[in-house]
């Protein structure tokens, strides 16, 4: 059963490998691009492939993005949001046109120097980054190492449950560990040695939150598989609530 599911997921992932992105973006005048107030932007970065021969950044792409935006457009009815995915390279100046950024599988992230510089400038200029879907101590160590290249000397702190982030739109009281679709069907929530989900943040010198870290949890998979009856509703509900909170908070703080 587990093997068959793995085959299915593998085939599905192959289908979802995105088309090649432009090597390097350039500034596109708003009239020519799809100009919406909000575009759910996914960070494209260098690094290892995941277990399905995809680049790490492209995990769950683009279905998670599209499905998430379907929910966001319904839940945040007054947000002028694009329904399309929007992957942008970290070293692309166009990244600065999208002050909200989502990155996954950062446990395998291996940034080039231009990417380090691009992300650093993006965050210090006012960009807001949400990282998601990385598990266990090894991947945490990798992410921490990479983010400290981006923000040397930064402090990574636990976000307390009463942080305004968690009540920006939905008042989230219970913090779940969101499993990937495979584990969810098998009744497991953790991967590797990431047994407990935690939510951490990095703030700038003025105390403004600029990076939200969802570790040992996989909100992206919950968005991606939300329509599947076998994926537990409580996880996808929680994932959407958290995602909407991130957007509202990131667009106001």
């Amino acid at each position, binding site marked *: 059963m587990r093997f068959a599911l793995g085959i299915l997921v593998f085939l599905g992932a192959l289908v979802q490998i995105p088309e090649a992105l432009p090597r390097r973006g350039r500034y596109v005048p708003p009239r020519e691009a799809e*100009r919406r107030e909000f575009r759910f932007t996914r960070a494209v970065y260098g690094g290892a492939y995941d277990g399905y021969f995809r680049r790490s950044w492209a995990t769950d792409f683009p279905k998670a993005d599209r499905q998430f935006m379907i929910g966001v457009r319904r839940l945040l009815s007054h947000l002028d949001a694009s329904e399309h995915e929007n992957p942008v390279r970290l070293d692309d100046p166009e990244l600065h046109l999208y002050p909200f950024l989502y990155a996954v599988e950062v446990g395998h992230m291996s940034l080039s120097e231009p990417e380090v510089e691009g992300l650093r400038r993006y965050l210090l*200029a006012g960009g807001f980054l949400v990282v998601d879907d990385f598990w266990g101590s090894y991947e945490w160590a990798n992410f921490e190492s990479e983010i400290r290249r981006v923000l040397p000397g930064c402090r990574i702190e636990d976000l307390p449950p009463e942080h305004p982030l968690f009540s920006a739109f939905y008042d989230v009281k219970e913090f779940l560990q969101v499993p990937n679709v495979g584990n969810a069907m098998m009744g497991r929530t953790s991967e590797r040695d990431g047994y407990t989900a935690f939510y951490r943040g990095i703030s700038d010198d003025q105390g403004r939150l600029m990076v939200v870290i969802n570790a040992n949890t996989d909100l992206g998979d919950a968005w991606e598989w939300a329509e599947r009856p076998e994926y537990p509703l409580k996880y996808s509900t929680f994932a959407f609530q958290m995602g909407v909170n991130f957007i509202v908070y990131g667009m106001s703080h």
Partner: protein
Amino acid sequence: MSSVFDRAFEFLFKYSPYLYEKGRFVMGSPWPALAVLGVGVAAVLWSYGRARDMERRDRAALALLRSATLGVLVFCLCQPALVLSTAVPQQSFVGVLLDDSRSMRIADDGTPRSDFVAGAFSPDAALARELADRFKLRFFRFAESAGRLSRVSDLAFDGGQTSLARALDTARQELSAVPLSGLVLVTDGADNGQGGEMTDLLLSLKARSVPVFTVGLGRERFARDVELTRVEVPSSVLKGTSVTVEVRLAQRGLGGSSVRLQVEDAGRVVQTQEVILPAEGESAVARVHLTASEPGPRTFRFKVAAHPSEPITENNQQDVLVHVTDDRQKILYVEGEPRFELKFIRRAVSEDRNVQVVCLQRTSQNKFLRLDVDDGEELAGGFPRTREELFRYRGVILGSVEASFFTPDQLRMLAEFVSQRGGGLLMLGGRHSFAEGGYGQTPLADVLPVVLEEGRAEPGFLAPLKVEPTAFGMTHGVTQLAATEDESAARWKTLPPVSTMNPVRRTRPGAVTLLVGRGEGLQAPQVILAYQRYGAGKALAFTAQDSWLWQMHADVPLEDMTHENLWRQLLRWLISGVSGPVALSVSPERTAPGTAVTLVATVGDERHVKVNDAQVVAHVTEPSGTPRALPLEWAVGKDGEYRATFTAREPGPHEVRVEARRAGQALGSATAHVQAADSDAEFFGAEMRRPLLERIAEETGGRFYTPETVASLPSDVGYSGGGATVQEQKPLWDMPALFLAVVALLSAEWAIRKRRGLA
């Protein structure tokens, strides 16, 4: 010139024009003389009528000349005379008013103006003796106040202000019980005090037949001078606010030259700027940007370096007192949708301790996010539904929120927020703003400084724009991005383009545009930032929807503070001058110690409706720390206005805090400052003001003199008609003009005869 004319007139007609003006012309019995004239003219005509050998034209000319000669002689026989009311010696009084202000120390032509006073009115001076021979003299000194003077040598010439009206009124009252021939006013005419209305006083003097003889001292025009004529600065600003100060300069003889304007804050130079002086008669306006960094009363000194040949240098500088407050003032920002513009505006002003942007952001249908509220109650019910609630804010920002979000009453409240409460309203560009938000038919359409077109923009309209300041925006404190105009203009050129969804091309009459946007395909420039005064407040329109790109864009260096500074300045400007329910003004804000200061408090309730039954008390703290309490009385003529006067006794800054209560409930308080210091007001507009002195003399029946013409003053006063007088008849038959006329007529007759061979 006029003195030459007067002398010539007096030579020809025996007496000065003033005597002819004051006197009445009479003639003795004319009939015998007319009979003689008739006989003489008849004889002339008969005689020339018989001379047939002469040409007709010559006969007519000679007859005319001979008749005219006879006419002049007959006029003399008629005993013409001037009847004058002449003062009886030592029976009338004359008040001599001597200017004791600092401007009398100015040495226009090498010697101080005060030297004339000391020289001409000392007891042994010719002018004083001549006056004293005819009248009983009473001396007065005057500056900001007036009083009797026992000795001319007691004059110190140290008055900080001059009030001519107060001086004349004081002398008139003191001499009202004696026969008064007139008042002699010796001054440079620098009338800068608050001594009342001159026009009323002149009418009063004229009605009482008290002529004023004015003696003007000093030059009417300096050869070279630079003067800071005016410094315009708000009396109260928030700490950290960049203030735009307008400095006006005038000059004499130095047009086109460059001077350095320097600004000092407590002795520390904080700004310098080169200013090109204008042509004579025009003002140069320099706009200086200052940041009030320390709370409390701050004295800024504006000065330009003195030119070596300037007679006075005191008018090259001015001190202004600014009350820097350290309050935290609230702005309500209503946003109809999640937008990055809100995030970045909040981010820009997050470090500003004096501005609190309270946000009400609609995130979904009937779901709102409240940010930076004071407590759980604030805005719990959404946008304020009462004026009390709304008028607590100093400014309101409307983001992309459609007009139908508000009830009709809330829209009216917003309009009244500007017009009556005096608040600042800012509308931001967005898909639900301006005409696209349906504001065209609402009360806010008149409030906004831009014209809302009838039709909305086409769906999907989005114009990329490169923003640039207008000529006014180049120098305005909000849109000047760098220390100099050139640097600021260069900075604007480097900013990335932004966009708008609201085509706005026109502003309302009276509105001022600070920023415009240009882009491909746009027929006319887009108005990006404009403002107008509306009622007691002001309204701003900022039509771009993504100014956050000036912070976030990859082309903008991280250390660049353009976005932060622009929004910080813009929001501070939005609420600058917006007061609470209680406002206080002091007049003058700078005065000489010992002079009166008027306090005017405007008191309203929490709806800013004027209150006439409040108890208003001013607490004045003197520089030494001594407190004084002073009740303010309602000025019956104006709703909500309370007044009181106090004397600034000590030199230094006086803090004035008014507190208003009604029925035991506090309505509010306000603070202002008064600087008591020796004033340099006497050195501004210090040229002799001849038109004013001539007007005083003419309207009261007196005469204007300069030191060159003053010799005739004693005799002129004697014929003024005031005081104890007798009628005096002055014969005119022997005036040289008549003799010269006879000589001229006879000479002309002889010349004709000579030419015709008849002589």
